[in-house]
């Protein structure tokens, strides 16, 4: 029997989607062996979160009312104490920016093998088998973990969110947070500047990635956007390089867009990019690499050099 401890995530008063996905992943794992699924929720309005987390498959929700927002020292201490108390086999956390700010520390302290960014999990007897990507999504791998206890961070949007209500026990966990060991203080939040254009409003997005190579070449994509009367957006490297302002960035740390048509030009389709555009009605990819992940999620693909295709496309609309 293997019990699972999953740690929910919330920010600024909202439970994040991945929390319900963790419940699905956790309850699948627990069900495979007849174990229990424990969910922990730390900081903020834990009672409200516990109610939202009262989902089918959850046996117990452990609440820890300490602080308002995420603090990695608090999370690390509390999760370690819960782990010691419940002695689960698997620790599941989101592979989010905050998940990666405490899960590796917990794994180190508890001496647990750590598998990050899992997109699928199975058990084969005592062995946990995790599916992960490598090389920016060009290949998938399976990793077997030979240990009784394992820490896993799961990728968002890979498991369906648990929605059916359940009736778990809700228990306040009496964590003993050592204040002296808290060496980091969250002093606030800041939203990245809005700017001139709202790419989330566009019906047609022409989006450019590192395949454009040089800043001078950006003009070509701007010309295309003009010819199509489309809005210009981009992947992260273009913004990192300062070629376009931050409000044009599509993805996990940029904007989530849902245009009628999204044309990805010279963009590989890394998971953090796809997180921002997979809801587009129609996805078109122009890429020289047939194995780029974007070619798999695209509805229409052109496997060719953008420097040949884009001029021809501009021509079509002049």
């Amino acid at each position: 029997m293997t019990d699972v401890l999953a740690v929910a995530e919330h920010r600024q008063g909202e439970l994040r989607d991945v929390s319900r996905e963790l419940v699905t992943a956790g309850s699948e794992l627990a069900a495979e062996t007849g174990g229990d699924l424990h969910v922990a929720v730390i900081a903020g309005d834990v009672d409200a979160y516990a109610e939202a987390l009262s989902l089918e498959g959850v046996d117990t929700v452990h609440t820890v009312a300490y602080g308002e927002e995420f603090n990695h020292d608090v999370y690390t201490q509390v999760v370690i104490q819960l782990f010691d108390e419940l002695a689960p086999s698997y620790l599941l956390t989101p592979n989010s920016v905050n998940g990666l700010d405490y899960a590796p520390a917990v794994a180190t302290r508890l001496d647990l093998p750590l598998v990050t960014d899992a997109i699928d999990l199975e058990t084969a007897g005592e062995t946990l088998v995790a599916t992960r990507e490598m090389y920016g999504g060009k290949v998938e791998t399976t990793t077997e973990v030979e240990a009784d206890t394992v820490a896993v961070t799961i990728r968002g949007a890979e498991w369906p969110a648990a929605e059916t209500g359940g009736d778990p026990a809700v228990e306040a966990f009496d964590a003993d947070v050592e204040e002296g060991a808290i060496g980091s203080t969250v002093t606030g939040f800041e939203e990245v500047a809005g700017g001139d254009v709202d790419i989330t409003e566009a019906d047609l997005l022409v989006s450019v990635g590192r395949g454009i190579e040089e800043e001078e070449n950006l003009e070509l994509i701007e010309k295309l956007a003009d010819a199509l009367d489309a809005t210009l957006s981009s992947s992260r490297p273009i913004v990192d390089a300062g070629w376009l302002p931050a409000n044009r960035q599509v993805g996990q740390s940029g904007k989530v867009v849902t245009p009628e048509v999204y044309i990805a030009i010279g963009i590989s389709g890394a998971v953090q990019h796809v997180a921002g555009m997979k809801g587009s009605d129609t996805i078109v990819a122009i890429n020289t690499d047939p194995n780029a992940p974007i070619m798999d999620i695209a509805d229409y693909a052109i496997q060719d050099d953008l420097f040949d295709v884009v001029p021809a496309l501009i021509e079509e609309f002049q």
Partner: protein
Amino acid sequence: MKVLVPVKEIATVEDEFEIDGTAIDERFLGADLNEWDDYAIEEAVQLQEDGVVDEVVTVTIGDEDTEQTIRQALAKGADRAIRVWDDALEDLDLLDVGAKVAILEQVVADEEPDLVLTGVQSGDDSFGATGVALAEAVGYQWAAVVNQLDLDGDTASVHRELEGGIEELTDVEVPAVLTIQTGINEPRYASLRGIRMAQRKDLDHQTLADLDVDPEAIAGDLNLTAMYEPESESDTTVFEGSADDTAGQLADLLRDAGVAQ
């Protein structure tokens, strides 16, 4: 103040490739400095140029071939480099986070840096976890996914880039490990002078025994058992033909969809 920058040489894959067992066939692999580490080096070198930092040391777990990448870091301004390699590492098909930490924690113990700047993740196996795991192992504070850093005495004031265009402002006590996100600065190209100077900089090779690393600790519990190309999730229509042909088909599609005239 001293900064340690763990630098990884990542494997890059050609557009067309073949898989051989649980690895990409070597014929289709290249090597590059991990993108995130490039930003970490730049951040460290800028701190040195600002007079906040006296020494920038890089550390790489990698075989002799990785020296070309290490020299790149030296050419960009790092003062000296440590390369850890050992026959015992040769046979591992996966160097997991626990193994990296077992090695890097000994380097931190020897070097006693005030700051360790890792990348957020490696571009090839993408664990995204080494920095924070290392911090806990050496008893340093930490912050993951840092896209702005200001040092003021014993406090590092950082911005952590969360999802959805939100940044968290956090004060972290030094010594600390920070995992550096792309975009935090503009990495420089190595100058010719830098490249020449890099040839003369110290690049010190250490074995596990030199570092007192227990070989047991690097065996790891993770075993790669399969590697394959992912199955396509959607029905993709591939437009065939010359650039004019495919552009024409795409133009029709856009007109039919009513998003362009």
